[in-house]
Structure formats: structure tokens, C-alpha cells
């Protein structure tokens, strides 16, 4: 008994020393990890001429937000940010709404096709997206012409939103249905006995219980959709309508020499997701844990 206690104490002591060592090592490594981001922030605060005349390692004569002001003025970063907002917010809301509808039916009602629906959605989430570029592009133009307006979906926010919803709803369905399986069946049964119809059962009974999962997913989805830029390159022909992450690519070519300005633009583009991550870290991690994967 006493030897076990001594051994245990020794083990703890040993472990403590080891942990301190590992902690220092991981700390140094963490600094290396975040350094490129810090360096970009640092660069964005320095005037271009300062670096040209004194070199990149010089002590700054002055630090300003001029690059940020210029980025907003010259690069029209504000317009692109607004585009991102216009695409991301409706996409996330619709994705979660549709995902919760499907998850609700397949977990609360016993149909034979439930498993097939779930498989369809989950497998769809893992398909290589490039597989669909050309047909979707053509379908959008074709549907537009059918309604007499070529830009009904193509080169339009609506089309981009639709595509994001179509590609993310699989993941949302998968995550929400595994979450909904943990909600006791009795809740649904009593709702049905109380005479609630299907819509009330969904809207008043199940949806409020989904709040934690929806919060977690919305943080994750916002990040993914905000960061995605290939669809906008394929489907948006007007540069002025593109979201910021797509626009950044063109700006990179245009402002290749003035990298302090570009740094400011990149930091502005990164800010929304980074801030959201730090503020809603718990939800973010919960979202990943719930789904455990995103292909």
C-alpha cells in the first residue's frame, strides 16, 4: 500500500518534470507556428518606403494603419467583404435549415429510405467538387436562359448561395442526424400524443433542442463558406461581385510589388474567421467533434 503511494508520488513528480520540458518545447514550436501570421501583421503596419530604404529587419521608424486605410480605399476591400457577407450568411442559414429538416425526418420517423437518404447526403459531401464544375456552370446558364435572364443564377449571388448550400448540406445533415439520435424518442412520442402536427413537432419541439448543435455547426460552416473561393471564380464573371477570398487572388497579382498593402488586405480578409474562432472557440471545436470529419 505504502509503496504504491510512494511510487505514485514519484510518478507524478517525474511526470511534472517531463511536462515542463514538453511544455517549453511545444511553446517554442507554437511561436514558430504563428510567426508567419505575426510577420504579416507586422509588415502590414509598416509603410512600404520604410522597408525599401531600411530593409525588412530594420527597427520601424513609425507604425501606422495607413496600409489598412489604403487597402479599403484602393482595393475596395469593403465591397468584397460585403459580397462575402451577402453570400455566407444566407448560405449558412439555408444549409442548417435544410440539414435540420432532413435530419429531423430520418431520425424521428421510421422509413425504409432513411438510411439511403443519409448515405446519399454523406457520400455527396465527400465527392471531389471539381467533378461538378462544368455541368453546374452549364446548368446555371441554361436555367437562366429558360427564364429569359442569363444572369439569373450565373454571375449572381443567388447561384453561388445555391451551390454552397448544395455542397454543405450533406455535412450538416450527417452531423445533425447523429446529434438528433441522442434526443430521447419519448419527447417525440409525447408531442405526437399531444396532437402536434409534423411542422409543430419540428419547429416547437425538436428545433429548440438542436440549438447547441446548430450553434456549433454555424460557426464551422461560416468559416468554410467564407474561405471557399473556387466556386466564385467559376460562377462569378464580374470581379466586383466576388467575395473577398476570390478577389484576393486578383489583388495579389495587381499589387505584387506593394506587399505591405497586400498584407493589410490579407489581414482584413482573415480577420472575420480568426476573430470568430477566438470568440466562439468552444462552438468551433464542438462542431468539429460532432462531425468528426469534413472531407
Amino acid at each position, binding site marked *: 500500500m505504502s509503496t504504491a503511494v510512494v511510487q505514485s508520488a514519484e510518478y507524478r513528480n517525474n511526470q511534472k518534470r517531463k511536462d515542463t520540458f514538453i511544455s517549453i518545447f511545444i511553446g517554442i514550436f507554437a511561436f514558430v507556428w504563428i510567426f508567419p501570421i505575426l510577420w504579416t501583421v507586422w509588415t502590414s503596419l509598416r509603410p512600404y518606403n520604410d522597408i525599401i530604404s531600411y*530593409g525588412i529587419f530594420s527597427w520601424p521608424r513609425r507604425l501606422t494603419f495607413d496600409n489598412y486605410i489604403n487597402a479599403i480605399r484602393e482595393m475596395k476591400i469593403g465591397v468584397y467583404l460585403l459580397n462575402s457577407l451577402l453570400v455566407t450568411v444566407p448560405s449558412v442559414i439555408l444549409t442548417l435549415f435544410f440539414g435540420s429538416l432532413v435530419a429531423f425526418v430520418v431520425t424521428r420517423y421510421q422509413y425504409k429510405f432513411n438510411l439511403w437518404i443519409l448515405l446519399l447526403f454523406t457520400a455527396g459531401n465527400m465527392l471531389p467538387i*471539381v467533378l461538378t464544375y462544368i455541368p453546374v456552370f452549364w446548368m446555371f446558364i441554361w436555367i437562366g436562359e429558360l427564364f429569359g435572364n442569363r444572369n439569373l443564377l450565373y454571375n449572381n449571388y443567388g447561384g453561388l448561395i445555391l451551390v454552397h448550400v448544395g455542397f454543405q448540406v450533406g455535412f450538416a445533415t450527417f452531423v445533425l442526424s447523429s446529434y438528433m439520435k441522442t434526443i430521447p424518442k419519448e419527447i417525440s412520442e409525447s408531442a405526437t400524443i399531444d396532437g402536434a402536427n409534423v*411542422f409543430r413537432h419540428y419547429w416547437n419541439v425538436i428545433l429548440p433542442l438542436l440549438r447547441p448543435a446548430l450553434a456549433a455547426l454555424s460557426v464551422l460552416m461560416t468559416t468554410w463558406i467564407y474561405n471557399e473561393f473556387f466556386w466564385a471564380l467559376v460562377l462569378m464573371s464580374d470581379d466586383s461581385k466576388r467575395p473577398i477570398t476570390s478577389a484576393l487572388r486578383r489583388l495579389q497579382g495587381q499589387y505584387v510589388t506593394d506587399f505591405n498593402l497586400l498584407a493589410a488586405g490579407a489581414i482584413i480578409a482573415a480577420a472575420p474567421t480568426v476573430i470568430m474562432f477566438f470568440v466562439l*472557440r468552444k462552438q468551433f471545436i464542438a462542431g468539429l467533434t460532432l462531425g468528426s470529419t469534413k472531407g
Partner: protein
Amino acid sequence: MKSAATVQKKRSRRSLSKTDRFTLATFVGIPTLLQIILLWVPAVVTIILSFTYWNGIRLKDIQWAGIQNYKNIFVNNPLFYQALKNNAIWLAFFVLIATPLGILLAYQIDRGIKGHAFYESIYYLPVVLSLAVIGIIWNFMLQPGGFVQGLMGRDIGNAISIWGNPKINTWVILGIASWRHIGYIMLLYLSGLKSVDPALKEAAAIDGATDWEIFRKIILPTMKPVNIIIVVITLIESLRAFDLVYIIYGSPTIFPLLNLLVFQNFAGQGISMKGAAYAVILLLLCIVPIITYLRISFQEDIK
């Protein structure tokens, strides 16, 4: 028991009114339709298009090509084999180095070392950045006049080419890709590790087990489902990799990857259905990991 459940199931289904059944059909129908129209139909169309010649301009110009697109890919096309090689290197690097590093990091952070929550955030930070931003950040680090060149004592005049040098660019690209991948794997693994009973580890340690033995004999077996999912994610990510390279080069000539070849031939101007054939090859390579993933996820439901 089973029959009682069946009876109840039947009763509850019968009790659904017409409106309710209509509501249910709408609930499932609209999202499913969207999924089929935007994803599955285009995927099938692409498979069909891979057997045709088409420049993507007028629908009536589509011509049957048989397997000619595939022949063009497999025969006399060094770009394809380079892409396969690069994807294989990418895969090997991720499986053997990046993913284990992420797991190791998760294991260490999970032991509750000082400041673990802070470290967790730092290592995860690159994952929340858009690749467009990541491209710019690393360009700053590596371009002539950038930080790394400055550190090596090279100013703009005598800078070495990093992106254009085939000896180092592979490792630089893999390094940047790992910068994101390691944090992602770490967070996924961490959430799994939280479910391992800490008493189990401590008991083993008191019995004289080394860290490595604890990891191999206790952590790995308990984490089996998470391990499989992480391997599948690593496989799929390596096969589908291309956005980072697209951001850096814009074209597949210097560092070809399968997905990059698809994108170049299958989006934007001057498209050819060779791109569709590339996409189908990519799909075939992804199918095994996808099915493995689905089987793990739906194991209980299928039973």
C-alpha cells in the same frame, strides 16, 4: 418486444394525416432534390462527358470520343505521371509525417501541460485561414526580399528562387500544407482523447509502462474509430489536394497534381473533356476511402 415496437410504428405511421405526410415529403424532398441536381446529376454528366470531345461552348458540338480522352491521358503524357507521383509523395508525407505529428501534438497537449488551451488555439489558427490568405502569407515569408531570404542573408538582388526550384519546392509546399493539416488532425484527435479514461493511463504508468507503451497499448486501441477516420481524411485530402498549389502557381506545369489537372482542363477558358476524364480518374481513386468512411459511419445503421 419487437412486435410491440412494430405495432407502435405502424400505428404512428397510420396516424399521420395527409397534411403531415405532405409536410414530411417537402422536408426531405427539397433538400434531396437540391443535392441530386447540384451534385449527383453533374457527377454523372461529367462521367459521360469524359467519353466525348467538347470545347464547352455549344452543346451541339459534343462528339463521341470513346476512350480517346483516357488514352490521351495514359499515353505520352508525362504531366499525368508527374501528377500521380506528386500526389503519392503528398500522401506518403501526410501519412508518415504530418498526421503522426498532429497525433503526437494532441497527445502531449491532452496531458494538460501548462497553457494547453492557448497552444491548442495557436496550432489550430492556420486551419481557419482561407487558402487565398495562406498563399499571401507564405509568399511574404519566402519571396525575394521576404523574411526567410533575409534570414539567409540574401536581399532582393541575389535571392534564390524557392517556388521555381524543383529540389526544394516540393518540401516547401508540403511544409505549408502540413501547417494546416497538423492543426486539423490535432483538434480531431484531441476531442477523441478526452474520452480516454485518465485513470487507465496512470495505472499503467505506475505499473512501469513507458510513455510509448502507454500510447501504443492503451491510447491507440481505445481510439480505433478515430484513428480510422483520421487515416481516411488524410487519404482523401492528399488525393484532392490542389488549392494551395493553384494559389501559388496558377497552372499545373511546375507542380502538377491530379486535381489541378482537372481544374485547368475543366473550368474557365479553353476547356477540354480530358479534364472530365481526369476528374473520373480522381473519383475512382477516392472511392475506396469514401466507402471505408461510409461503412464506419453507418456500421450500426446497416446492421
